[in-house]
């Protein structure tokens, strides 16, 4: 036993706190509603065949069905035929809870469409943010012009404004412009990221002036310097910013919930969770957690694949 065991204990406790919600999410996405409600079945649940009551009630036979089926069951009473049909429906609607949860997740809501929406929105936001932030940060870090400090002061000031404070005015502006329920409403308000400008400016401050002067001597204009010199040297910083930007907007529930009211074609993945919100007949925690798992997976996979670059980006150690 090392003397540092208590450090590990604290770290393990911290890890449990962080992991627990993910554990529950993934576990619930495997289990049947009964197991979730009773809190049993361990991590995977017992995976016993379960019957989807809703599916069965949708297939409940009426007079026409019974009349149509009477040929298959010759010489039986209507009641017997009905019982047989219900039994058929039950067996058709019974499945393992995992299958149930995940098929529900993709069938009840067009989750694939939501995922594509999410990719389109986050990628456009990030690309436009980069196009705006890089020249702005270059100007703030390396060019001398009247009012530069004031502009940078404004950037810092804007960092202090919480999104929720300006949500309502933003919504009104978008509504007046007739842009609610469009992709533009999801993308445009985020295209100027003061955080991005600030982060890139801090990074550009560390780029030696000689490099920029050399580029000028070599015949580059200021924009050429931004794209041909500053951008390639700033890749680690830009990656760090990409993490912040993409994670924040992929997971954003608040803003899409506000500007996308009717059109389900525009839903982003987090809005997909609403599909399983309990109405009259209780919440569908299983499919809901399956959806959540599907939403989170791309980020986690991307992180694991690019872990080294990401950490490099966050610590900004890629530059000598």
């Amino acid at each position, binding site marked *: 036993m090392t003397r540092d065991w208590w450090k590990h204990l604290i770290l393990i406790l911290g890890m449990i706190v962080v992991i627990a919600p993910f554990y529950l999410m993934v576990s619930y996405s495997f289990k049947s509603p009964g197991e979730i409600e009773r809190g049993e079945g361990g991590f995977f649940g017992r995976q016993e065949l379960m019957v989807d009551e809703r599916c069965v009630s949708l297939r409940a036979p009426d007079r026409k069905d019974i009349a149509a089926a009477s040929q298959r069951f010759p010489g039986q009473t209507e009641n017997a035929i009905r019982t047989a049909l219900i039994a058929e429906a039950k067996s058709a609607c019974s499945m393992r809870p995992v299958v149930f949860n995940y098929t529900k997740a993709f069938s009840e809501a067009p989750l694939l469409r939501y995922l594509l929406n999410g990719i389109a929105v986050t990628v456009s936001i990030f690309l436009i943010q980069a196009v705006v932030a890089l020249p702005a940060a270059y100007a703030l870090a390396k060019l001398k012009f009247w009012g530069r400090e004031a502009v940078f002061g404004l950037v810092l000031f804007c960092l202090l404004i919480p999104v929720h404070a300006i949500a309502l005015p933003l919504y009104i502006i978008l509504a007046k412009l007739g842009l609610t329920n469009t992709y533009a409403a999801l993308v445009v308000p985020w295209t100027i990221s003061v955080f991005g400008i600030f982060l890139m400016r801090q990074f550009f401050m560390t780029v*030696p002036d*000689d*490099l920029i*002067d*050399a*580029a*000028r*001597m*070599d*015949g*580059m*204009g200021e924009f*050429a310097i931004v794209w041909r*010199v500053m951008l*390639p*040297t700033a*890749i680690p910083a830009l990656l760090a910013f990409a993490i912040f930007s993409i994670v924040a907007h992929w997971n954003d529930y608040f803003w899409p919930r506000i500007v996308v009211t009717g059109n389900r074609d525009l839903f982003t993945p987090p809005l997909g969770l609403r599909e399983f919100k309990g109405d009259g007949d209780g919440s569908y925690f299983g499919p809901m957690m399956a959806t959540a798992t599907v939403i989170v997976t791309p980020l986690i996979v991307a992180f694991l694949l690019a872990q080294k670059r990401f950490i490099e980006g966050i610590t900004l150690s890629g*530059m*000598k």
Partner: protein
Amino acid sequence: MTELSIVNVTKRFDETDVLKGVSLDIADGEFVSLVGPSGCGKSTLLRIIAGLEAQTSGDIRIAGQSVVDRRAADRNLSMVFQSYALYPHLSVADNIAVPLKMRRLSRLQRLPLAARLLPSGRAASRKIEYDVHQAAKMLEIEHLLNRKPGQLSGGQRQRVALGRALVREPAAFLLDEPLSNLDAKLRVQTRAEIAQLHRRLRATFVYVTHDQVEAMTMSDRIAVMMGGRILQCATPETIYEDPDHIDVAEFICAHKINILPVEIADDGQLHLLDRRLELSVVGAGRGVGSLGLRPEALRLAGENAPIRGHVVHRENLGAELFVQVEVAALKERVTLRANPEQRRALQLGSPVGLEFDPAKALLFDPHGKRLRQLRPTFAAKPEVA
């Protein structure tokens, strides 16, 4: 023909005058060093010539034409920076190719892949590739063309920076302390190489350094700058042997020059340490001047020598011996260069007398200006009744 003219250039940063009216004419193919202590404005002057900084007033002319309104890129000058300033994300070949690409290719041709797809771009790219190879061959860095700057040593990076500067055959080269990031041995070697490169290219070089040895060894002419002014611009020999100003004499020296206070009488007769010297000066008023004596201008003498003291420190460099002598009436020690054979007479603490060659004595007035009109006066000169 690419002579450079700097005409009365001044530069103010906020409240400080960095350049106070600098004028300098540099001939075609000349190697001129701007040398001075840090903060003297030499780098600022170079950046103004380059067009990276705007002057407050004055004019810069290249081949007789004013370039004040032109961007740095349009002045056709190359610059080598102290930090080399190579693009870290590009290979050596691409680094050297950048100035050619920016000049020879159109915006369209510079797009990725365009160089390969457009026939015009393909020809231009081949020419660029050829020129890059020629430059690399001249600097013997062909084997490094595919590496990134991060994988190179300081000396190799320096060559790449030179290659990037010379590949497009500019009107003039501007070098801003290009050797100060190299270690001592490499610096000496590269010094010779840059001088050779200058001879081969016959191009105009403007070289900024704070190291007077670099300036002395490489330049056709040296411009000594101090406090935003050029104090003197002349050949290395003139600067060393015949400086205009006490600051120039003090700055340009391998070993610190000895500055001794000397009294100038009404008739110009000089007195050193209350002893009458066999020297007088014409056209200077009464006052206290300074006598500059380089260590090699002093020699050992007997009891009757004008300067007497005792040895307090010795530096034996093998081929020569530098001896510091403490003189009672002087605040600073006097340094003497002696032959190693004289070692025996120069033990620590032993008394020595020093005399000097009047032809090598440099006299400065109280403001530091050089007084050249020295005349020998003889001790035995008869007094006029």
